[in-house]
């Protein structure tokens, strides 16, 4: 009871403790509960007939042979969904998307029909037996060609519609033009600048490829008129609202459950045709229907990431002070605009592209384009296009440094937003909450002995017999996460707030529920740690539940590093409501006034009298036993948090590579990643996610690519070709941190763990290009496979 303070603090296992995870027990014993683990009585299986070509008319679909297969129960096409008005559905981006191809195919592997059967085997046979007659059309693959007059028209359903969801459309395959910043001021700055640089770059199409593919088990109870669906979704409440709107079933009778999810990374945000068809099938047939896609389906048809063709420009003084940034993007969205962005931002948060720098004038313009490819664009730990924005600005700063012959660290220091300038309003209108970039940069440069590295590089460059090119990559990035204030951020009209409900039990333990959903981010541990510190209850006995829309308060889900900034704030605020009530009860129990009390770790004690105190456990009992007059019994609270602003985590990453001059193979010698996410809830959890994000970044930069041939055949859509690093290729990661809390967040936390993906990718390119910089090379595109690097070596006259 009266153990030393440090012991009592440790016993809480609260904020800041690298405590081990509460979720692990089930995962290390094979007791995880993923969607494909669900087996319901009478459950049917669903599989999808997919288009073999990228652009075609559908002349005929013949279900006869499929329906004759024993065990096959039904085959559904767009015609079967038409009477329900479900053959098309709204996307998150204000467009519509075919649920099943309606007279026309828009991308290879698009869903054309679904087969429902008693088991996986007969259903697969059924898929093979469905006969579809296609009339192939010319495919549009290049987004620049798509915008040219006379290009084949993809979206016949939009013919005549000159106005899209985001303003006027310039041509049949054009989706939107979106701009931010001050064009006039920016153009003026460029016109008069002493130095300007320009660089084209492509952030290629890649895919999050989580280990668990997408799927659901839809179960409609015809007796109760209730729909329950277990689903791989990062946003179960949004799914419930949309499913209710589409099906006409009231939300109170729709239950969406996201169980354990085997990795999300943004791949599990969209609502896919497979989910809709499984739900329709279950309603029509009155039995549970399971749909789980395979790996090739996942890579070919679910939300891809990136595919931004960017031109960046910087205007500067002769000694390297950046005056203006200008950028244009041609954004390849695929055949339907299904970008998972907040409604008002068709290019996400791309306008964070002024980065960590104090730039007076800036302008960006993004043109979205339709092509015969699967829909998507915003996914893969991108924080809503922050990956693209950071890549652009960091490449441009390197290009400028090279033009001026300046060191890449020196030019960044020169242009940093200084600590005293925060809160800082960028030229694009973001109000950065806090930052201290120079301190972090100094820490990294000292840790790696940057001067020695540059000296070593100079030596190697001077030695013609050196078998490798040495490159040093440096990225100093700022992200914008924690979407977001409801007045500017909404998903299909629902404001991007989040929520927490906490209920403390008579014997002192608690259950808490939130509107987010972990896919490996350890919410069951970290959320409990927040509450533990706020309420003085050990995190061991605080149970955290997420993902069941029947019990969890409404939230917008987990993606874009928003859980800690938004739900984490709701947790602190709900806990503080309980804390305030507990104080009232404590005062009553000890017959003192609240002003006489102070909080110490796990108890209220009377000021100046250590012996007179009440622990939260004692207060919890009192709240249920004999609450003071005028106070409701019980000890619980709910808080819905609408954030006042985004949060702005930042990082400094440095990478050293050695490239074999003969083969183009690259060894990542060292990767040093310093992250500042404000207050750190669990250092062990943060570090683990940083390792994971850096590994994804390594994969993207060094080997991942989903490409298409001229006919629109997707290439590289299996793990034969799509680069997922194993333990052998993955470098050893060094992590570090600084702590610059967010002044507007209740616990000063900013959110973390998209940063290693966002920040590492340009760091790798920076290192690779730096290896060639002394030869005048300013940029080459990803992925930096050995073959592509070897081609650069040939171009530079190094390899033969």
């Amino acid at each position: 009871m009266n153990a030393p303070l440090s012991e009592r603090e440790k016993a809480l296992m609260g904020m800041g403790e690298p405590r081990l995870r509460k979720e692990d027990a089930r995962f290390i014993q094979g007791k995880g509960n993923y969607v494909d683990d669900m087996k319901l009585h009478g459950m049917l299986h669903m599989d999808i007939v997919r288009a073999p070509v990228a652009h075609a008319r559908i002349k005929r679909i013949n279900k006869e042979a499929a329906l004759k297969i024993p065990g096959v129960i039904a085959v559904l096409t767009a015609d079967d969904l038409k009477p329900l008005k479900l053959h098309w559905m709204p996307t998150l981006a204000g467009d519509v998307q075919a649920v099943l191809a309606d007279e026309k195919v828009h991308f290879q592997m698009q869903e054309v029909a679904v087969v429902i059967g008693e088991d996986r085997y007969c259903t697969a046979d059924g898929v093979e037996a469905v006969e579809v007659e296609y009339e192939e059309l010319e495919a549009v693959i290049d987004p620049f060609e798509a915008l040219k007059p006379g290009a084949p028209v993809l979206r016949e359903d939009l013919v005549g519609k000159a106005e899209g969801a985001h303003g006027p459309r310039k041509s049949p395959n054009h989706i939107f033009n979106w701009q931010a910043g001050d064009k006039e001021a920016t153009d003026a700055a460029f016109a008069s600048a002493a130095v300007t640089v320009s660089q084209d770059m492509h952030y290629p199409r890649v895919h999050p490829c989580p280990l668990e593919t997408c799927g659901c088990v839809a179960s409609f109870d015809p007796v109760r008129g209730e729909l329950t669906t277990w689903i791989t979704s990062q946003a179960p409440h949004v799914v419930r609202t949309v499913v209710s709107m589409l099906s006409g079933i009231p939300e109170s009778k729709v239950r969406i459950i996201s169980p354990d999810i085997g990795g999300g990374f943004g791949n599990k945000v969209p609502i896919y045709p497979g989910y809709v068809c499984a739900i329709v099938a279950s309603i029509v047939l009155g039995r549970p229907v399971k749909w789980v896609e395979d790996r090739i389906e996942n890579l070919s048809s679910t939300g891809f990431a990136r595919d931004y063709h960017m031109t960046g420009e910087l205007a500067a003084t002769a000694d390297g002070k950046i005056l203006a940034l200008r950028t244009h993007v041609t954004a390849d969205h695929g055949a339907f605009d299904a970008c998972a962005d907040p409604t008002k931002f068709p290019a996400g948060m791309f306008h964070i592209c002024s980065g960590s720098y104090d730039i007076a004038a800036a302008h960006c313009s993004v043109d979205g384009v339709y092509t015969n490819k699967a829909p998507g664009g915003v996914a893969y730990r991108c924080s809503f296009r922050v990956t693209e924005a950071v890549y652009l600005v960091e490449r441009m700063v390197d290009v400028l440094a090279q033009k001026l012959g300046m060191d890449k660290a020196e030019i960044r220091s020169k242009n940093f937003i200084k600590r005293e300038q925060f809160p800082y309003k960028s030229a694009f209108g973001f109000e950065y909450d806090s930052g201290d970039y120079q301190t972090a940069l100094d820490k990294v440069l000292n840790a790696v002995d940057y001067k020695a590295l540059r000296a070593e590089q100079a030596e190697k460059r001077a030695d013609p017999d050196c078998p490798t090119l040495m490159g040093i990559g440096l990225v100093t990035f700022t992200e914008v996460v924690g979407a977001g204030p409801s007045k500017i951020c909404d998903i299909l009209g629902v404001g991007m707030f989040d929520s927490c409900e906490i209920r403390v039990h008579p014997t002192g333990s608690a259950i808490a529920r939130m509107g987010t959903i972990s896919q490996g981010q350890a919410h069951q541990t970290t959320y409990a740690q927040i509450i533990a510190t706020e309420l003085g209850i050990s995190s061991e006995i605080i149970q955290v539940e997420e993902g069941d829309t029947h019990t969890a308060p409404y939230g917008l889900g987990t993606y874009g590093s928003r859980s800690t900034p938004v739900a984490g704030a709701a947790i602190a605020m709900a806990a503080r409501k309980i804390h305030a009530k507990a104080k009232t009860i404590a005062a009553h129990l000890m017959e003192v006034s609240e002003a006489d009390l102070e909080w110490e770790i796990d108890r209220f004690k009377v000021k100046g009298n250590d012996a007179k105190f009440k622990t939260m456990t004692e207060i919890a009992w009192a709240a249920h036993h004999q609450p003071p007059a005028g106070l409701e019994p019980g000890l619980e609270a709910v808080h819905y948090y609408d954030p006042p602003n985004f949060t702005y985590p930042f990082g400094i990453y440095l990478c050293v590579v050695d490239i074999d001059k003969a083969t183009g193979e690259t060894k990542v010698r060292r990767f040093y990643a310093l992250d500042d996410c404000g207050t750190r809830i669990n250092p062990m959890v943060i570090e683990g996610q940083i390792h994971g994000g850096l590994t994804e970044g390594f994969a993207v930069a060094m080997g991942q690519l989903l490409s298409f041939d001229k006919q629109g055949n997707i290439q590289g859509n299996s793990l034969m070709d799509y680069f997922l690093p194993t333990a052998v290729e993955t470098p050893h990661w060094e992590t570090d941190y600084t702590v610059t809390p967010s002044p507007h967040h209740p616990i000063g936390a900013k959110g973390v763990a998209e940063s290693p993906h966002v920040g590492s990718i340009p760091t790798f390119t920076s290192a690779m290009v730096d290896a060639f910089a002394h030869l005048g090379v300013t940029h080459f595109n990803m992925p930096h496979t050995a073959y592509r690097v070897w081609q650069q070596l040939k171009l530079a006259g190094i390899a033969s």
Partner: protein
Amino acid sequence: MKACTHLTVQCEGSDVKTVESLASGGALHAIQDAFYKEHGLQCGFCTPGMLMRAYRFLQDNPNPTAEEVRHGMSGNLCRCTGYQNIVKAVLTAAKTLQQTAVAA
């Protein structure tokens, strides 16, 4: 052994172990405990495979180097951890198992 590359009949006569067999009498196996203590998992989807592969790997190589662990585990993919803590976990399990073997 990967379930997707073997037909069930090929296992006739073999002793097949899955992750559920590791813990015994309510006590975790050293490998499970090591993954827990070294934070060798996040979403948990790859974990049963990692644990069973580590179990087999340590039978063949009870005292591996970190590089040997990386090669030994290279048949199992993970998207969450970046493998660093998995390698630590296998090395920790190796040490524990050796100490237990010595003690026994």
